[in-house]
């Protein structure tokens, strides 16, 4: 008599066989001691696996997670503050350097009132504003890239 193969027996032991197969396998098992013994073993394995229990972590597990998160929140707060401060520092330094360069270009011996008039000119004002805004935008993008949160792409 030809014995049932391993895959067929596993399907029967895990209740994954079709109705026709179930009848055929059941008939075979009632006539074949070897297959019946093998089936009994597989059924015992399946039963023990089904009864398996989950592992339990230490009692303070959830507390440890919350503590870790709180500690990281404090740390992140510090980083966020320094990042913000860094942006304004760069922007302030640039604005200062820009103004110094204009004053230096106009010459220190020129009357202050003349320099003031030049600065009030619409072209120079617009140029200054757009340069400052662009610098702020670039600094902002760089800071986001360096300090920003990374995306966690998931299919859920």
């Amino acid at each position: 008599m030809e014995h049932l193969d391993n895959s067929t027996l596993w399907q029967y032991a895990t209740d994954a066989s079709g109705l026709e197969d179930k009848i055929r396998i059941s008939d075979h098992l009632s006539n074949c001691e070897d297959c019946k013994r093998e089936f009994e073993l597989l059924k015992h394995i399946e039963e023990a696996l089904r009864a398996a229990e989950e592992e339990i972590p230490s009692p303070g597990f959830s507390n440890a997670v919350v503590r870790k998160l709180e500690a990281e929140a404090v740390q992140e707060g510090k980083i966020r503050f320094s990042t913000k401060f860094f942006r304004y520092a760069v922007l302030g330094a640039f604005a200062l350097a820009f103004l110094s360069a204009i004053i230096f270009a106009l010459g220190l011996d020129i009357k202050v009132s003349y320099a003031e008039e030049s600065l009030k000119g619409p072209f120079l004002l617009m140029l200054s504003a757009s340069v400052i805004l662009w610098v702020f935008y670039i600094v902002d993008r760089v800071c986001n890239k360096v300090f920003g949160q990374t995306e966690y792409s998931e299919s859920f």
Partner: protein
Amino acid sequence: MPAVTKLVFKPVIYSISMTQDQILIKEILNSNSPAAYRALVEKYERNVFTVCIKILRNREEAEEVAQDVFVKGFKMLNTLRDHTKFPNWILKIAYTKAIDRSRLKSISKTEIGQVNEKVFEQTETPFVVASLQNRKEILAALIERLGTDEAAVITLYYFQDRPVKEIAEITDMTLSNVKVKLFRARNALREMISREFKNEINDLL
């Protein structure tokens, strides 16, 4: 005069159809508080820890990785679109992190052998007549000898009753790949039992 019924309006109104997970996640996202996250951690800590320990085979390391999994889960919670899928999502993070960690370390075979021998020394009874509790212990020890993927699939399927489709989602495997790994893992366990109890089973049969 009829008693005046005092109506209390809650600021956040939840839909009746919302699951407990959805309510918890909504509260966590609104408050951004780690303390609010505790309930979710307590609900799923066993699932996450079991996956980690079965892959890493070390309790301390599994606890450390499981904690990191929940920390990452909290930070990335706003990226989760379907809140009802939180259990599968967090298990996916657990599976990925544990597999990454297991790749970093090499598991000494002698260590595993020693652990298992200890279990078998205690159990001289052949597997087929052993009590259910004994069989569970033996299988738990044998699962440690499986490859990490097989151990993870067996854990998700039997320990956590996840259907094959969900296991495929969690592990990023195809359905047929999960089925093959499950079949291989069962067969490997059967072979290991045969080897370990060869003499006893032969005597019995």
